[in-house]
């Protein structure tokens, strides 16, 4: 921001994808203007299909041949659109470099990491191979990869997701580019790894002085990283401003809705603000303002012509009522209709409610097999090793943990309704170890699941009526009853009963998730297992599904086991929370207790890693960065499993460390009557959000 001169100027960029035989072309980007100054960070935020990634790729000329690009992209005054491939190749990687979303598919699987980074150096610099390799090792060191020499000889699949993204950043900064384009660089990563990678991006930016263009759907990431933000909707920038200004006083109703739709870690309760409808597909844009059909402030003139991006002091918005918004500064809930969530009717005292699910000491190991034909066991993976769960009627338990923490295994063990390898599972007072087949089959009706990916969890070859009827049929319900239930259920989740004969692909993501929920509710279960039910959905759609879940819980008295990596969602929805690390429950208790005064250092690091969708609060708080990746669960080491990454352990005096190294900590209550326990020998209390002194 020191130099006000524009480094990259995008003017009226348009991208069209040619239609196949006789079909109309679709416009993915429809007139985007952007300016990037030297050294600054520009955040581009938008939902799927908003054209944000296509914009980034168009800048580099990386779109496929079917894409028609018009407009202008100027780098230091040099026009890039229409430049021949050879010339563009010279700029790519040396002046503008790119970091992609999925680092596994973005590396060529058959070459070593070192070869791929060295190649990036050799393309643009006249150095010999050995020098390039040394440079590659330096780069890996810069992005914090331990033992760079060895890492150079690894293949991409041998790296963890976070390591791959670090290597990707190392490759991008290999030639000290002026601009780093990062397209959803942390979307596929866990939250603690996301925090590390964002930190690496900042380091890389600092070391090279590059400007950063960060494309993301995550308002929190944008708030944390960006200096300026451009909000995209339906192929256009609808609002752009400095980050503080944008979050504090949005002038476009879409931005306002987005901010209201995100659950936040530092506030709780109440319904979220859902933006009605779905983003329009690029092939079917409405006339006029593309947001008008979803906009509560839309007027007749919005439907006739598309407003231009206008404004002053660098705060521009494409809305005819932006001045009004700038003046009034309404809260999202003042503009958008917010549904009422009926209050829960259960006795508030936990002890008075009967338990629905109780899990204690649950263990599940998987054999590590080797050999092609006659496989033999060479070891064991402790996927789950000491999980405790306790859910009572009408309450929501949030199960939190990163990839590999054993969340899914825990779910499948519970859903399997069989005798666990070790420990005890009790569903509605019945021990699953003692169930015969018929009893287990009956008990299944009390326990249903909603999966993460609403497309994958619905059989694409079945009409949704049959999908919803499947659990009823499995429980041998009579046909007239099934026919009666289907329309009821569809109505319950806010879908039109007339659509029972349609196929899943005819519905949008949010609607499909509602179908999943309807299917799970068909047999009137008492406990609903929700496995990341909103993580595949766009923010504005996610809010509607979360509100639905809250309403159903209150109306039907359901208990939820809600699994999520997203702590903000858990915070928003759950009554109690259970935190897992490497197959073990490390902290559990009421949401207030765990989120406000976390005791386990892992929980503290997790909470600290979640970016807040609020730049002011984001700058004010202190961050604890968790080092490294979780160790492999194949080794079952004595002592505390978290100590290899634990800041508390690292700071301990040697004689105090012995306990962590030898005794595995058990869950201990924070206070005699408190619903809060942590498995740490040296629990520290940290108020959250921690503020900088």
């Amino acid at each position, binding site marked *: 921001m020191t130099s006000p001169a524009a480094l990259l100027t995008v003017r009226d960029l348009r991208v069209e994808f040619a239609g196949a035989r006789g079909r109309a072309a679709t416009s993915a980007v429809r007139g985007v203007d952007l300016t990037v100054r030297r050294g600054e960070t520009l955040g581009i935020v938008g939902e799927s299909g908003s054209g944000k*990634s296509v914009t980034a790729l168009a800048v580099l000329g990386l779109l496929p041949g*079917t894409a028609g690009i018009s407009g202008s992209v100027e780098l230091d005054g040099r026009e890039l659109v229409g430049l021949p491939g050879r010339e563009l190749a010279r700029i790519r990687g040396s002046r503008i470099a790119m970091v992609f979303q999925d680092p596994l598919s973005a590396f060529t699987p058959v070459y070593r990491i070192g070869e791929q980074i060295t190649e990036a150096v050799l393309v643009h610099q006249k150095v010999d191979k050995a020098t390039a390799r040394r440079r590659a090792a330096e780069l890996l060191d810069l992005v914090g990869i331990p033992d760079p020499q060895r890492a150079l000889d690894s293949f991409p699949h041998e790296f963890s997701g976070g390591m791959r993204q670090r290597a990707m950043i190392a490759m991008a900064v290999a030639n000290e580019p002026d601009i780093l384009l990062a397209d959803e660089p942390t979307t596929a990563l866990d939250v603690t790894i996301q925090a590390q990678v964002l930190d690496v991006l900042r380091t890389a930016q600092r070391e090279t002085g590059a400007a950063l263009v960060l494309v993301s759907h995550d308002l929190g990431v944008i708030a944390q990283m960006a200096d300026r933000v451009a909000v995209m909707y339906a192929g256009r920038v609808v609002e752009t401003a400095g980050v503080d200004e944008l979050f504090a006083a949005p002038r476009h109703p879409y931005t306002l809705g987005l901010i209201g739709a995100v659950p936040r870690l530092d506030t709780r309760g109440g319904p979220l603000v859902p933006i009605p*409808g779905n983003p329009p597909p690029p092939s079917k844009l409405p006339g006029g303002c593309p947001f008008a059909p979803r906009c509560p*402030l839309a007027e007749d003139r919005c439907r006739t012509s598309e407003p231009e991006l206008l404004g002053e002091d660098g705060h521009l918005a494409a809305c005819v009522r932006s001045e009004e918004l700038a003046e009034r500064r309404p809260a999202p809930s003042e503009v958008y209709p917010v549904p009422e969530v009926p209050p829960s009717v259960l006795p508030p005292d936990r002890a008075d409610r009967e338990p629905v699910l109780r899990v204690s000491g649950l263990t599940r190991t998987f054999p590590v097999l080797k050999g092609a034909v006659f496989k033999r066991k060479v070891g064991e993976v402790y996927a789950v090793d000491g999980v405790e769960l306790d859910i009572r009627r009408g309450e929501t338990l949030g199960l939190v943990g990163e990839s590999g923490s054993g969340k899914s295994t825990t779910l499948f063990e519970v859903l399997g309704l069989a005798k666990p390898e070790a420990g005890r599972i009790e569903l509605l007072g019945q021990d699953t170890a003692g169930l015969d087949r018929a009893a287990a089959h009956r008990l*299944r009706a009390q326990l249903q699941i909603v999966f993460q990916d609403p497309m994958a969890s619905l059989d694409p070859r079945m009409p949704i009526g049959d999908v919803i009827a499947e659990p009823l049929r499995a429980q041998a319900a009579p046909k007239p009853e099934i026919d009666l239930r289907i329309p009821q259920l569809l109505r319950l989740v*806010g879908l039109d009963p007339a659509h029972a004969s349609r196929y899943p692909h005819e519905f949008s993501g949010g609607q499909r998730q509602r179908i999943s929920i309807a299917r799970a509710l068909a047999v009137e279960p008492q406990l609903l297992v929700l496995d990341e039910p909103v*993580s595949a959905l766009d923010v504005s759609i996610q809010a509607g599904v979360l509100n639905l879940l809250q309403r159903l819980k209150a109306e039907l008295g359901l208990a939820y086991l809600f699994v999520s990596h997203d702590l903000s969602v858990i915070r928003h929805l759950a009554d109690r929370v259970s935190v897992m690390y490497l197959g073990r429950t490390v902290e559990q208790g009421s949401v207030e207790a765990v989120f406000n005064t976390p005791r386990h250092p892992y929980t503290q690091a997790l909470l600290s890693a979640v970016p807040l969708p609020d730049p002011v609060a984001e700058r004010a708080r202190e961050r604890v960065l968790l080092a490294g990746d979780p160790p492999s669960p194949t080794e079952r080491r004595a002592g505390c499993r978290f100590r290899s990454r634990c800041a508390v352990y690292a700071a301990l005096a040697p004689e105090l460390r012995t306990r962590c190294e030898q005794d595995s900590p058990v869950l201990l209550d924070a206070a005699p009557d408190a619903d809060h326990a942590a498995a740490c020998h040296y629990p520290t209390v940290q108020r959250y959000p921690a503020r900088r002194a």
Partner: protein
Amino acid sequence: MTGAGPTVTTADAVIENATPTAADAAPAGRGKLVLGRLLAARGAVAGTVIVLLLFLLAFVGPYLTHWRYTDIDYAALRQPPSATHWFGTGGLGQDVYAQTLRGLQKSLIIGLLVALLSTVVAGLVGACAGYFGGWTDRLLIFFVDLMLVFPSFLVITIISPRLKNTGWIAFVVLLAAFNWMITARVVRSMTISLKEREFVRAAQFMGVRPLRIILRHILPNAASYLIVDATIAVGSAVMSETALSYFGFGVKAPDVSLGTLIADGTDAAPTYPWMFYFAAGLLVLFVLAVNLIGDGLRDALDPTAESGRAPSRRAARLSRSTRTPKGSR
């Protein structure tokens, strides 16, 4: 929802507009979609027309001439095509037209039956091996590998002396018995990945029984592959049939097939081309048409296939890749 200012609604029903939005698929049903794509592929249309015409020729054609395939015209030996003998005559005065059509009939029927049989076997074996896993899988796959060790040609040839008197139905069973293994392997690996899909897991957790899951979820979802494969299997079955018959190990007199006709005409080919090329040409034409249909079907049934799709594959990937669901594995 159009009024300015806040309005509070109690149900979400209004929020999520209730009509399906068809965000990423045409509103038409799947069948219509497939048909549309199929019609867009010119090859598939041409293939279908050719196959229909050949069937018409094989089953109606014989009634257009008074010569039957067993008839012998002593007055015309090795005569080129003429008004009396449309495809000419053979060395003994046989009518090549009647013979070729008779052979075509047999080859078509054999091809269809073999494809049907082998696809059913492949689907069941593959789905069971993949779904049940463990020892079921290991044994079935060992069996499949065992069957694959020998080219089917060798085994059928060895067995064929035993089948001298059993006719062509036994031959069909034999051909099918050695034609399902590769398909079964593919179905198996498809099943393994389908088994991990959430809708199958959901069905398992709902208490749906394994065989029902295979029939209701696994096989319908492998159906597009099976249909394509069955189509191509018709072609390969006809090729195997003709090859075996050519060497005298398949269809035997008094039956005729395209293979036996080609064998009879081989030596005469340079001098009396009509005795060879009509049968050979029809054979190639039929297999070609069937392959074209198979290829068109594959593109039409596979949602990620290239032809007939909106922009390019890469463009579609772009729109999809902007948000990958993240979370626990």
